[in-house]
C-alpha cells in the first residue's frame, strides 16, 4: 500500500503544484490590480489593496477556486485512470485475485489528498505574493501599504475556516471522481464522458458545500 500512496502523492499533490503556483500567483496579482483600480475615492486608504487581496485569497480563491481547478486536473485524472482500468479489465483482474478494488485503488488517493491543505497553503502564500508584486511593480501602491493591509484585522479563525473547507473539498476530490471511474461501464468513449461528468459533479458539490460551510461557519 505504501508505494501506491507515494505514487498518488506524486501524481495528485506534487504534480499539481506547478499549475496551482502559476494560477495563484497571477490571480493574486489580478485581484490586487482590480482592487486598486476600483478604489476611486481618495479617502480610501491604500492599504485596502493588501487587505482585500488577503481576504479574497484566503477565504475563497485558494480553498474554493483552486479546488474547482483541481476537480478538472486531479478529478479527471482519477476518473480516467480508474475508468481505463475498468475498461481494460484490470479491476476484474484485481477482483479475480481476491483484492478489494476500492480499497486498492481509492484508499491511497484518499490518503494522498489529506496533503491537499499543503497545496492550498502554497496557493495562499503565492496569491498574496503575486498581489504584492503586481501592486508594487505595477505602481498601484507601496510595499509598506500592501503589507500593512495584509496584516490588518487578521482573524485566525479565517484560516481555520479555509482549512476546514479544504479538508472537505479534498474528500470530495477523492471520492466523486473515484466513484465515476470505478462504476463506469462501456469503452474508451465512456471514459471521456465519465471524466466530464465527474468534473461537473465535483465542481457542483464543491460550490454547494462551500455555500453550506460558509453559512455555518461564518454566517
Amino acid at each position, binding site marked *: 500500500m505504501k508505494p501506491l500512496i507515494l505514487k498518488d502523492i506524486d501524481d495528485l499533490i506534487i504534480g499539481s503544484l506547478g499549475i496551482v503556483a502559476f494560477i495563484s500567483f497571477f490571480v493574486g496579482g489580478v485581484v490586487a490590480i482590480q482592487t486598486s483600480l476600483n478604489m476611486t475615492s481618495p479617502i480610501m486608504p491604500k492599504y485596502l489593496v493588501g487587505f482585500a487581496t488577503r481576504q479574497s485569497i484566503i477565504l475563497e480563491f485558494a480553498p474554493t477556486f483552486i479546488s474547482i481547478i483541481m476537480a478538472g486536473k486531479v478529478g479527471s485524472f482519477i476518473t480516467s485512470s480508474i475508468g481505463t482500468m475498468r475498461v481494460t479489465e*484490470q479491476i476484474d483482474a484485481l477482483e479475480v485475485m481476491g483484492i478489494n478494488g476500492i480499497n486498492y485503488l481509492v484508499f491511497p488517493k484518499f490518503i494522498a489528498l489529506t496533503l491537499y491543505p499543503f497545496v492550498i497553503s502554497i496557493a495562499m502564500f503565492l496569491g498574496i505574493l503575486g498581489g504584492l508584486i503586481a501592486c508594487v511593480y505595477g505602481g498601484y501602491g507601496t510595499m509598506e501599504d500592501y503589507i500593512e493591509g495584509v496584516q490588518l484585522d487578521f482573524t485566525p479563525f479565517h484560516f481555520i475556516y479555509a482549512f476546514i473547507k479544504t479538508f472537505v473539498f479534498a474528500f470530495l476530490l477523492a471520492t466523486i471522481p473515484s466513484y465515476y471511474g470505478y462504476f463506469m461501464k462501456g469503452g474508451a468513449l465512456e471514459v471521456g464522458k465519465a471524466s466530464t461528468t465527474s468534473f461537473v459533479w465535483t465542481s457542483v458539490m464543491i460550490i454547494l458545500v462551500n455555500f453550506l460551510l460558509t453559512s455555518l461557519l461564518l454566517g
Partner: protein
Amino acid sequence: MIEVNSLHKSFGETHILKGITTSFEKGKTNLIIGQSGSGKTVFLKCLLGLFEFEKGSISYEGKIFSNLTRNEKTNLRSEMGMVFQGSALFDSMTIAENVMFPLRMFTKQSKSEMEDRVNEVLQRVNLENAHNKMPSEASGGMQKRVAIARAIVNKPKFLFCDEPNSGLDPRTAIVIDNLIQEITDEFNITTVINTHDMNSVMEIGEKIVFLKDGLLEWEGSSETIFRTENEAVTNFVYSSNLFRKVRKMYLEENK
C-alpha cells in the same frame, strides 16, 4: 476438477444461463465455445466468482463456492489464475512487477524468492529479457504471454482464459495455445478456455462444451466434434469451407 450444477444467471428480466450442468476435468484443457450472446463470458465470470448467480452451484475440487467463508473464498481465489481477453496487465507496472503482483499479494516470500520465481515463469513463457519493459512496449503476443506468466506464477490449481487468441496472428495464436496446453499438462491444473477460435478447438480441445442460448447444447472432445450430428454444433464449428473440408477429410480417413 470443477463441477457446475444447474447454474442459472439473469440480468434483470434477461435470463442468460438457464441451468448449465457440466464438469471441467483436472489436467485437461476444457474449452467453452458458442456463438456471441450464448452466455460464454457470463458463464466464465460465474466460474471466476465475479458474478453471483441465482440458482445452482459450482464446486472446486469438492468445495462449493457459495458455502465458503470470506477467507476461504480469498484462499480459493489465490489458487485461480486468469488470462483476460485484453491481457489486463497493470499499465503502471513493468512486466516483472505485473508477474510478481500475485506473489506480493498472496505470499510472504522474500524479495529474492519472488524475483527467482518471476525469472522462472518469464523464462517458461520465453520472455526472459522483458523484465523491465512496460506493458505498452510489448506486442499483443508478448502481453498474452505476460498474462499467462502472471496467471501461473502463484502455482494455481485452476487456470481460466477468456479468448486468449483474440487479436493475434495465426502463428502467435498457435504458440499461445501450445503454451497453455503445456502448462496444463506440466502443472496438472484444471484449465477452462473461452474461445471462438476453431483452430484452438481442433488443436487443444480435450473437453469441449458448446453453449447455445444459455443452455449446454453439446459436450465432447476435439475427436468427437468431427463425428457429431448435432446441427447447432456443425453449423457453428463447420461454418467455414476450410473446416468443412477438414472434417470431410477426417471422416474419410477414419471411416
